[in-house]
């Protein structure tokens, strides 16, 4: 036990004092904030400041649509009216779009009593925000016009066509609680994201550390004093503690930032993260188990390799579960309780990420969380058993990378 503690302490201190720890501690949150900032900014600015034209035969309809579009202050749209429009105007508008004088134009054919046909022509086909605004304005203006045509006074038209915003509430323990759907969504989402790379980063870290000890030929010196199992255990505990330290620093810094006046100004009306105590505990549990799973796997594999390049060839073993988890993101978030979502959140390599993605939309039943944690613990136990056996032999083998039959033979030793 003393040996494990000494090895863990050495590993912990070496990594904490190392440059890599300091760099990642600072750099990763910076990258994180940058990515989220860019996403938030891009979301805010998409479809902003567009210059479009509204072309239709009816000047009053065109004017109404323009008013509705300009009324949306966030969009900062410039709207030209071409009415009454002719086919010659259409050709002219097409040229203008082509020459980038305007971003697009709405071509609206609304013959009295006939079929209405609206086309929005623009250079970019992916500007959903502008499309949405135009669609909404056209529909609103047409409904107003039709109601007015049936003799309803314009004052009433306003109240009849008023848009309604939907409030969302979440049902917890049979009670409605105030809506914080977006906040819990973002919190769980960020946690899933954090887990995805910290678990793998520290898992690979253990693998690299094994390779370094192997290339520095330190193993045989150590093995004359400590058991290989103790070396492995000490290393796993030491590096795991480094991971928890880094997460604690980020968590602490995040909490300080959230509490500061600057944050409340920046975050006002923007994204807020709400983390419950249960999520905090689960985050730590999933980190520890996920880390244990990947690190034991990579410790075993690394012991069979001679160089980091050889170890890199095993990287897909970590990357594939992450791609799989994030590939299912939309499905899981919209169907958190479907069979597939539940199944993948039980699958140990994917569990840490997918369980938090499920939490993003709905907190899973306790038994499912317990089962997924149990399955993870079981798989850690099995991988540890296999890895420690391979490790014991592998660390003393130099030269070529071990093949699968060789590794199977090592399992039978002792």
């Amino acid at each position: 036990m003393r040996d494990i503690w000494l090895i863990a302490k050495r590993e912990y201190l070496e990594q904490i004092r190392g440059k890599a720890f300091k760099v990642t501690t600072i750099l990763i949150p910076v990258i994180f904030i940058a990515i989220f900032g860019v996403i938030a900014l891009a979301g805010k600015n998409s479809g902003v400041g567009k210059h479009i034209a509204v072309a239709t035969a009816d000047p009053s309809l065109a004017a109404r649509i323009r008013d509705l579009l300009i009324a949306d202050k966030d969009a900062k749209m410039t709207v030209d009216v071409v009415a009454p429009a002719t086919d010659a105007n259409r050709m002219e508008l097409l040229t203008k779009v082509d020459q980038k004088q305007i971003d697009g134009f709405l071509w609206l054919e609304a013959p009295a009593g006939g079929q209405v046909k609206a086309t929005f022509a623009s250079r970019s086909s992916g500007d959903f925000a502008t499309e949405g605004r135009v669609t909404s304005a056209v529909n609103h203006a047409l409904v107003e016009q039709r109601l007015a045509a049936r003799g309803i006074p314009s004052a009433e038209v306003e109240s009849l066509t008023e848009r309604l915003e939907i409030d969302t509430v979440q049902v917890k323990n049979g009670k409605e609680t105030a809506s914080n759907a977006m906040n819990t969504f973002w919190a769980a989402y960020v946690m899933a994201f954090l887990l995805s790379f910290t678990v793998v980063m520290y898992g690979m870290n253990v693998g690299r550390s094994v390779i370094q000890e192997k290339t520095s030929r330190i193993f045989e010196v150590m093995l004359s004093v400590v058991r290989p199992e103790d070396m492995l255990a000490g290393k796993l505990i030491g590096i795991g503690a480094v991971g928890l330290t880094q997460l604690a620093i980020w968590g602490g810094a995040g909490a300080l930032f959230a509490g500061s006046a600057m944050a409340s100004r920046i975050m006002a009306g923007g994204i807020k993260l709400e983390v419950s105590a249960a999520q905090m505990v689960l985050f730590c549990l999933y980190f520890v188990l996920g880390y244990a799973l990947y690190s034991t796997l990579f410790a075993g594999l690394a012991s069979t390799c001679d160089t980091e390049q050889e170890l890199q060839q095993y990287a897909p073993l970590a990357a594939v579960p992450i791609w799989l988890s994030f590939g299912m993101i939309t499905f899981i978030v919209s169907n958190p309780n479907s069979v597939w979502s539940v199944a993948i959140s039980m699958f140990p390599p994917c569990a840490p990420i997918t369980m938090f993605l499920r939490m993003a939309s709905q907190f899973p039943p306790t038994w499912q969380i317990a089962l997924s944690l149990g399955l993870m613990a079981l798989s850690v136990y099995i991988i540890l058993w296999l890895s420690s056996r391979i490790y014991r032999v592998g660390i003393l083998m130099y030269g070529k990378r071990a093949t699968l039959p060789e590794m199977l033979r090592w399992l039978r030793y002792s």
Partner: protein
Amino acid sequence: MFGLLGPNGSGKTSTIRMMIGITMPDSGTVSLFGKPFTRESLKRVGYLPEERGLYKKMKVMDQLVFMGELRGLDPAVAGRRAHDWCERMQILEAIDKKTEELSKGMQQKIQFIATLLHDPELVIMDEPFSGLDPVNATLLQDTLIELKKAGKAILFSTHRMDQVEKLCDAICLIDRGHPVLQGGMREVKSRYERNQLLMNFEGDNSFLQHPAIASYKNYGGQAEIQLKPGANAQELLHEAIPKATITKFELVEPSLEEIFIRTVGEKVDA
């Protein structure tokens, strides 16, 4: 001091690894200090493997204290001893440097210190002289002699017969995992006939045709003579005295190197 000898691939390293519990023997048992092997007894052993390394990013002092602690030393004691040893090995200026900043020779010294820091009763070194520059080789040799004087048991494996001959009290020569020659150094050597003769002489050299001589090289007044097995050198001397003035007549015992080559060679032939 005990020398474990053998050609490449004869099983020296494998034998040593079994002695200190890194690998388990398929058959047979290992006894340490007269008792069946336990990991606890390893705290009384200092082991320097052939494949030896240090933690590159660690400072020398931290590294030595860590190694000492693993072998059961109190950190303060380990630190004090590390300081003394570094002084003795003249690397005191390196004590606060990271290992990766040091020269290879300095790293080798630190490896010796790490092996000896906990004052082991038994020192086991696998090819300790391989890769050493002459200065460090002499330093190690002197250190080993001092340890021997201090009553420590030392076992090392090597290819270098000159060192074994100089240092060891007993040897074991193994080949393909089996001991082929073992015992005290004098006793082993005495098993081999002294049938090489060095002579310096002036005068008639016709005695070189004596039937006891298997072959000879004559350098004009200096002859290296190989006697036939069982030949009596005294008879040759009697024959030579009337013909020439003998200034040197020396029966040379075979060097360990010759014994090594002869023993291992015989096995290969068999």
